[in-house]
């Protein structure tokens, strides 16, 4: 007898015994054992995070170039724009539609002050370094034109610089106090203290939840060089794969795909376009039941016949005989 509170198809189709609880328990047991064994044998991917200290030791010129770009405003982050500052360098817009700018600058970053002047002031105070204090004073009281001249000279010189031991050796030139400041920044990074000096800026207290400024100091060439060598940059399917031999987040494939083809990978608003494209595709997935054509596609494709092959085989003789199936109660 079919009770009122059974779901509707229980009244339309013949039923069979089915132990749902047993299925769940067995499934959980099997999956848990497989996962525990695979985890024990294969482990999980892990590559230690890169620190400012490592970059300073391996690529000292790069640290000075990054700090100089932050100081003189030519660095990528210095002119990024919202949500960090008032620049325009990384604002994305599709035909004037740019919600990136709607929020203002909720995560403020002044690269000259945050990445160079404040950490160096702390260093000068902590070490009692009068020369550094004087260098900072000289820089901050110089005219904009003079500061720009020193920076330009040093930018050119860093392209020809040589690394001897732990220092960057420059050709003779007029760098004002900037070369001294950049060397101090490098030594601060080499000591391992630059990360702490940067991380404290985005936390307003003793706790360290937000590592924004520390990561943003590294986000340019420093991390790109390492990621590129690991085939992990955006045009190399970036986030889609993990360390070699481990599966990555392959479910992001449809999203990452757009970064490989034009116009997404050639547009300045490529991120914005990819996000909206994937958002649109996701909406289509959600609304499949109402999308004309798409909602009837499975009926046209033969796969359901394979999935329900036993049912159709069972049904056939009855149908051929013209019986009124399937009200087998």
């Amino acid at each position, binding site marked *: 007898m079919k009770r009122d509170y059974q779901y509707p198809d229980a009244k339309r189709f013949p039923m069979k*015994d089915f132990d749902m609880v047993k299925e*769940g328990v067995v499934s959980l047991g099997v999956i848990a054992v497989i996962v525990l064994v695979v985890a024990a044998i294969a482990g999980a991917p892990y590559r230690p995070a890169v620190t400012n200290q490592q970059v300073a030791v391996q690529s000292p010129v790069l640290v000075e170039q990054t700090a100089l770009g932050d100081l003189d405003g030519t660095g990528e982050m210095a002119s990024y724009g919202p*949500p960090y500052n008032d620049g325009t360098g990384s604002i994305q817009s599709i035909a004037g539609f740019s919600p990136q700018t709607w929020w203002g600058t909720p995560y403020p970053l002044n690269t000259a002050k945050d990445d160079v002047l404040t950490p160096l002031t702390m260093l000068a105070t902590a070490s009692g370094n009068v020369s550094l204090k004087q260098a900072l004073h000289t820089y901050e009281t110089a005219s904009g034109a003079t500061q720009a001249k020193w920076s330009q000279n040093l930018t050119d010189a860093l392209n020809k610089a040589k690394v001897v031991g732990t220092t960057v050796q420059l050709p003779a030139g007029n760098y004002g106090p900037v070369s001294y400041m950049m060397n101090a920044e490098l030594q601060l990074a080499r000591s391992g203290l630059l990360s702490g000096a940067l991380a404290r800026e985005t936390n307003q207290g003793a706790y360290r939840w937000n590592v924004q400024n520390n990561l943003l100091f590294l986000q340019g060439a420093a991390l790109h060089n390492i990621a590129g060598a690991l085939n992990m940059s955006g045009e190399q399917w970036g986030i889609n794969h993990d360390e070699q031999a481990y599966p990555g987040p392959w479910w992001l494939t449809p999203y990452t795909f757009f970064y490989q083809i034009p116009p997404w990978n050639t547009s300045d608003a490529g991120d914005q376009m990819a996000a909206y494209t994937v958002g649109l595709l996701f909406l289509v997935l959600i609304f499949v039941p109402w999308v004309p054509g798409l909602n009837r596609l499975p009926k046209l494709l033969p796969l359901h016949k394979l999935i329900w092959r036993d049912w159709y085989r069972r049904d056939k003789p009855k149908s051929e005989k013209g019986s009124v199936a399937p009200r087998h109660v």
Partner: protein
Amino acid sequence: MNWTTRMRKRATEQLSWDRLLPSEQPVYVNSLVYSFGVFTLSSLVVVIVSGIVMAAKSPVWYQTSAVGEYFRAIHFWSVQAFFFFMTMHLVVQFFMGSWREGRALTWVLGALSFGVGVLTAFTGYLSRGDFFSQWNQVQSKDAFNGAGVNGLFNALDNGQIYGLHIAVLPAVLIALIGWHLVAVRRKGVVPPYPDEGTENAKVGDHS
């Protein structure tokens, strides 16, 4: 009308034990494809249990201790299993046209669960605390900024990412999946497409 009476009556009818935990299924429920859903759920249970242990012990623990690394591996592989079975479940349910006969909400909840699952996993990848996290934090900031969600989400704020990963998004995901399960049980699994050219074709073709 008394709201309590109404809610109780509706729950009694729609959420009876016969629907929620039936001991019978229609005979067409006879294929491995019906197990992808329960495999997905089983994987999620392992994800949640391993995640709770990791959250209880701290990110430093799961990066530096041998036992912590093992739990990170369990979490990693159960997430892989979760997405594998969820994707199989989604694909198969599409080919079964499983939104038919009043099951559209079930489909929508499943699709939303997939989307929230992707976001949950992404914040997890950013919480690994290794180079992968670091690199994808600086890379994804441009995507979040460009898409215009920068005011809501700072990919460089580990506190926010971790909170989203271990509390906010799992709560939403579990709620969606729970609702999805109730929707599945309330309506029952989708019947086969009617076999064209037979009397059977007239039954159940409300696609």
